[in-house]
């Protein structure tokens, strides 16, 4: 009886769990050193990606990513020098470091960050 109550409680909790609290899957390009290697410069919220002390770039949080919007995120990853000629961030699209589909997956990941 006690075991059945515990199982029911767990199921109820799972049904009530909000989707936004689940971290999105980290795209390979985010961590691969020959691809975006975003993790080399940026931190993400706890649980949303590998932990790092890197701080050459700003911390990436979901609220800021959603304020920028997917189109703007895509532009910034493709060629951040258009917005800031002095940025250290590489032009991943313009310099063909990333394919369009890889940029798209990164945008989806960033937009879904907590």
């Amino acid at each position, binding site marked *: 009886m006690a075991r059945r109550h515990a199982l029911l409680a767990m199921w109820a909790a799972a049904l009530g769990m909000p989707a936004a609290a689940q971290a999105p899957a980290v795209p390979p390009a985010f961590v691969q050193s020959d691809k975006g290697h975003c*993790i*080399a*410069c940026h931190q993400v919220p706890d649980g949303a990606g590998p932990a*790092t*002390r*890197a*701080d*050459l770039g700003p911390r990436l949080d979901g609220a800021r990513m959603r304020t920028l919007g997917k189109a703007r995120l895509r532009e910034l990853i493709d060629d951040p*020098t258009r917005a800031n000629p*002095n940025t*250290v961030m*590489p*032009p991943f699209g313009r*310099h*063909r*470091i990333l394919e369009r589909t890889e940029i798209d997956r990164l945008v989806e990941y960033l937009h879904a960050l907590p």
Partner: protein
Amino acid sequence: MRFREGVIAVFVMAALAGPAAADTPEQVRGAMAAALKERLPELAEAQYPLGSAAFDPDLRRALEENAAAGAGAIEAGKALWTRKFRDGRTLAGCFPNGGRRAAASYPQFDPRVKRVVTLEMAINQCLKAHNESLYDHSDPKTMGVVIAYLRSLSNGQKVAVRVPAAAEERFDQGRRLYHTRLGQRNFACASCHLQGAGKRYVDAPLSPAIGQATHWPVIRRGAPLTLQDRIRECLELMGAAPFPTGSEELNNIEYYLTYLSNGLPLSANAWRP
């Protein structure tokens, strides 16, 4: 905080763009020092030679624990330094005072050949003059260990590179290369070591440009790695075709970078992970 960040950004951007070509080397060094001071106000001048370790207590502790990491390389280098050539002379005989206190003034501009001469080139010049086989600049077992020994003879000496008027063009070439974005990743050396100095890339703090030239060769896994070999590694990471060791480009970058560290004490054979 926003206003101060804006002021720092203007200062760093001006330094990143590079001073005007007419600026003297000392003015260039002063501008770099001022830009780094704005960027890293807490960093004392005495800490600049520590490089990355100035920003990471764990790394600094590891450096201290591994202070003798270069002992094997120095021993091997001493053997080559005092080895008799076929004509009975030695490498030591090519340098004043047997090489003691020599390294702090390299690279040097040689007006006869109108080129920057690095310590590696001076060693090979000696070998050539005595009909001995030259050392490969990138071979840690020969050139690397000799450099490890020779530079250890100048430990504590203040870096004192001279840039006479005839050499200013070479210095300026080195400066421009240091500040030019290269490769697929579009980085300049200055992107990390001025603009990003003190920040962490991957997990390691980025060393500031001033102080970078004081601790070479570094000892990595027991083997010496020269400054030019490290620059080549960086260029590859940047997605750029690396200039060959001993090339005009790398010699001039080394000339510029070492001049920036003038006045700081040399401390060769620093351990690196």
